[in-house]
């Protein structure tokens, strides 16, 4: 079946009513980014000396990194376990990861008080700092993702370099260059693929280490020395749900048949991963006896219960049900719940759980913060749509059955 599937650019009209709404959100978000650059962090956000980190770190960075886990999990499945049938989904997953991490970097960029010093960690090292490790890994991984994406670019343009006017004479040499690049990449790609998986494991877990140093300032329901492990396990279990959910959305918005077979195969792998995550989460709670905090009725305990029940237990049950396994809609709902659960976990860990000793005013994100976060997500969706239309990302059934890697120049 996958034999005659082929990744191709999907030519469609770019703007639909939904896309226009999303674009509007992106524009407002960018305006707030501009305001932050001109008037400073204090003018746009509700951050304070009590709450130095808000949703730009909790959502844009922490949740963003976790939800981009589809990239390394599918790379591990498709390339390292070498399951050919999953090759169709590695490209969309790779694109999501690439865009996701790009916006993680953008999120860090605007949150940094001195964004123009963002390169400092490259030469000023502090091996004791979890943040240093996260920063370096994310920087290298982002580069790796761009490299992994290059073959898709070469595939798109080889044999089709068609520069206008006087640049025409370069067409041939550029084409040759692309072919050399493509060959080189083809031979060395495995280095980057493995590196990508290793780097992901490292910084997904270090993102958990990040909050350990906050010590007593972090609510005991979340503060635990096994945070790095929990972060890694949850990232692993949210990878496939992200791919399932996205493939469903893509098929809906481009009017394609959903990949039910692959989706349900992926779905069958989610339950064990979620199960492991859940058992560690519960085990940690039992060992540290933090369940006593659940008897208190407050934001922390409510959020914790929602995170566990709606974000882990319910989707776990759904993924185990045979009916759900067969229905793309059911799978996407279950997948969405996992995504919600991990998203909430990051928000909880970085924002809800953070209770400094002296609080004058509780933190709630400002309009500006919310719009910037929403704007970045909107931009990501817009870019995803554009990339899918320009580059061969999404696989569709082919009738001609050409197996050649480079398609013939279209006149």
């Amino acid at each position: 079946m996958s034999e005659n599937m082929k990744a191709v650019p999907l030519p469609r009209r770019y703007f639909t009513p939904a896309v226009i709404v999303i674009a509007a959100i992106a524009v407002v978000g960018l305006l707030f980014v501009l305001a932050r650059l001109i008037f400073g962090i204090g003018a746009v956000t509700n951050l304070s000396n009590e709450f130095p980190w808000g949703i730009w770190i909790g959502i844009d960075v922490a949740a963003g990194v976790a939800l981009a886990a589809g990239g390394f999990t599918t790379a591990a499945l498709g390339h390292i376990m070498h399951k050919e049938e999953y090759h169709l989904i590695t490209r969309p997953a790779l694109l999501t990861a690439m865009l996701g991490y790009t916006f993680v970097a953008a999120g860090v960029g605007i949150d940094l008080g001195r964004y123009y010093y963002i390169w400092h960690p490259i030469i000023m090292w502090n091996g004791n700092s979890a943040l240093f490790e996260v920063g370096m890994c994310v920087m290298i991984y982002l580069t790796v993702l761009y490299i992994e994406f290059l073959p898709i670019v070469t595939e798109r343009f080889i044999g089709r370099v068609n520069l206008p006017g006087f640049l025409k004479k370069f067409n041939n040499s550029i084409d040759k260059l692309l072919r050399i690049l493509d060959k080189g990449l083809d031979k060395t790609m495995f280095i980057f693929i493995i590196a990508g998986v290793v780097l992901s494991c490292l910084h997904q877990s270090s993102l958990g280490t990040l909050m350990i140093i906050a010590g007593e300032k972090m609510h005991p329901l979340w503060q635990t020395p096994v945070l790095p492990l929990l972060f890694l396990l949850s990232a692993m279990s949210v990878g496939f749900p992200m791919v399932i959910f996205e493939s469903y959305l893509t098929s809906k918005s481009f009017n394609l048949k959903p990949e039910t077979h692959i989706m349900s195969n992926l779905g069958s792998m989610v339950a064990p991963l979620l199960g492991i995550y859940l058992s560690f989460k519960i085990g940690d709670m039992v060992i540290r006896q933090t369940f006593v905090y659940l008897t208190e009725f407050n934001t922390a305990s409510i959020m914790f219960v929602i995170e566990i029940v709606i974000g882990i237990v319910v989707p776990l049950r759904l993924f185990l049900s045979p009916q759900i396994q067969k229905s793309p809609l059911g799978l996407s709902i279950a997948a969405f719940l996992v995504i919600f659960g991990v998203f909430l976990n990051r928000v909880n860990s970085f924002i809800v759980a953070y209770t400094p000793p002296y609080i004058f005013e509780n933190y709630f994100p400002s309009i500006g913060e919310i719009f910037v976060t929403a704007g970045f997500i909107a931009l990501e969706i817009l870019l995803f749509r554009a990339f899918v239309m320009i580059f061969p990302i999404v696989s569709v059934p082919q009738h001609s059955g050409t197996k050649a890697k480079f398609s013939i120049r279209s006149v």
Partner: protein
Amino acid sequence: MVDESRRKFLKTTALVGAGITGLSTKTVKAGPKNILDENRMGVLVDTTVCIGCRKCEWACKTAHDLPTQPLDTYEDRSVFEKMRRPDDKALTVVNEYAARETEQFPLNVKVQCMHCDRPACVSACIVGAISKEENGSVIWDTDKCIGCRYCMVACPFQIPAFEFEKAWHPEIRKCDFCFERTKEGKLPACVEICPMEVLTYGTRKSLIERAHQKISLYPDRYVNHVYGQYEVGGTSWLYLASRDFAELQFPKLGTNPAPGVSEAIQHGIFAYFVPPIALYALLGGVMWINKKKAESNKDKEVHHE
């Protein structure tokens, strides 16, 4: 053929590994200075003699070129109605706690950076912009800081403050133990101005001795607790008080250094980069085996045909 591709594969894997190891030795060495000087300095704050004149606040601002009202405005005691915290405009503040029935005077407590012996802020800072100096001061380097505010997340005393309203080159502000003054042999500004000798500047060792002497001489006057002697692994600033420190809003902290667990995990995951390289090699091996398997399956299929 198979052998050759395998050899090439392993060689590349090894090379990448070696490259990362090369980096690792540097990382380990580049850590912040962790050696504590025997004779590092500190300040003993005897809150029982503080009268809340807030002259230290004025002196601190003046010594750090921060805008301030004239000294006589500091006599206004209405500021004590609200608890205040040090921020980017005041590196130290004095708070007041009402007298209990048996007591004649309210209690005043001066707050500033504790200059921890194992500072969480130093461990956390992504670029190593904060350092523990030989004389005990924990100071911040404006040339390195990128404004990530992780030091603020890390500090157990909630001390570092950030200039949120500045769009360009905001700073992290906190008490620097008057590093520039003590370098020239001067006293910290707050210590120098204090009229009641609440603040004693000396080596941390001698201050701890002195604190315990005071406690044993006047057991009725002090609770038997030198705050900062053991908290988060010890701090350069030490406090004496006549009641439980929790009542004076000092955070209740354990004796383990604040960065302890985090650094241990960090170094566990990165022990000379062995775990990441091992993972790399493992994944490389798995990938190679799976690829060979897939290829030989294909070969078989061909033969069948």
